[in-house]
């Protein structure tokens, strides 16, 4: 399940959906990203998120497909919000269930890392001094590249 949406999401409902994947599931790993008060700038008061409708969903589906080839993935759910977000709002959810914990952790963190460098989303930070588009971080590119050498 992939959703790009302006509204909030309920991680409890997402977890319940992953848990319903059957009696072979032994491990559920989830990640949720929240709006933090210090990003590129300090004193962040909110974000604006833009995406490329259609391409975004296709890229995320490709990441889930790749994760499913590399690890035992029984189900994966990805939600990403767009539009205006306030401090502490939920931005992104990635949940994976698997027979084994190693696969659940690996697939969940791979999808999250790769999403940050390949899914067409762009983030603008709001501060009391104005707003600015966030720059892509070298550390994010390195985290994604690290998955290639596995």
């Amino acid at each position, binding site marked *: 399940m992939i959703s790009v949406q302006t509204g909030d999401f309920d991680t409890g409902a997402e977890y319940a959906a992953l848990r319903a994947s059957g009696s072979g599931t032994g491990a559920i790993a989830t990640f949720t*990203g929240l709006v933090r008060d210090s990003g590129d700038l300090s004193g962040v008061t909110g974000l604006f*998120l*833009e*995406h*490329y409708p*259609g*391409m975004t969903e*296709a890229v995320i589906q490709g990441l889930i497909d790749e994760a499913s080839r590399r690890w035992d993935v029984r189900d994966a759910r990805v939600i*990403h919000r767009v539009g205006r977000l306030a401090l502490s709002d939920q*931005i*992104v959810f990635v949940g994976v269930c698997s027979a084994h914990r190693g696969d659940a952790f690996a697939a969940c963190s791979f999808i*999250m890392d790769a*999403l*940050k*460098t*390949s*899914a*067409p*989303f*762009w*983030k*603008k930070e709001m501060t009391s001094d104005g707003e600015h*588009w*966030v*720059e*892509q971080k070298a550390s994010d590119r390195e985290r994604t590249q690290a998955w290639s050498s596995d």
Partner: protein
Amino acid sequence: MTEPTLTVRFFARLREELDTDSLSLPANDGQTVNDLLTQLASRGGRWAQLKGDQPVMVAVNQAMAKPATAVKAGDEVAFFPPVTGG
């Protein structure tokens, strides 16, 4: 006969700085992404950044592409800064 065209879209900082969501451009035989960038940058002003120092990413028909990728009539070509979601 209608002139064959392709669609160019801009996102995020580029969309704002060029004050343009999308354009319809004539499609020429043998054209590449790089040809489009050169053509658009020649408009000058803020358009020059399309051939500037800052990285510009490109997608053709919603798949990541390169300067050498060929483009043809009917294609959707998108230019945008490196992505920053998550």
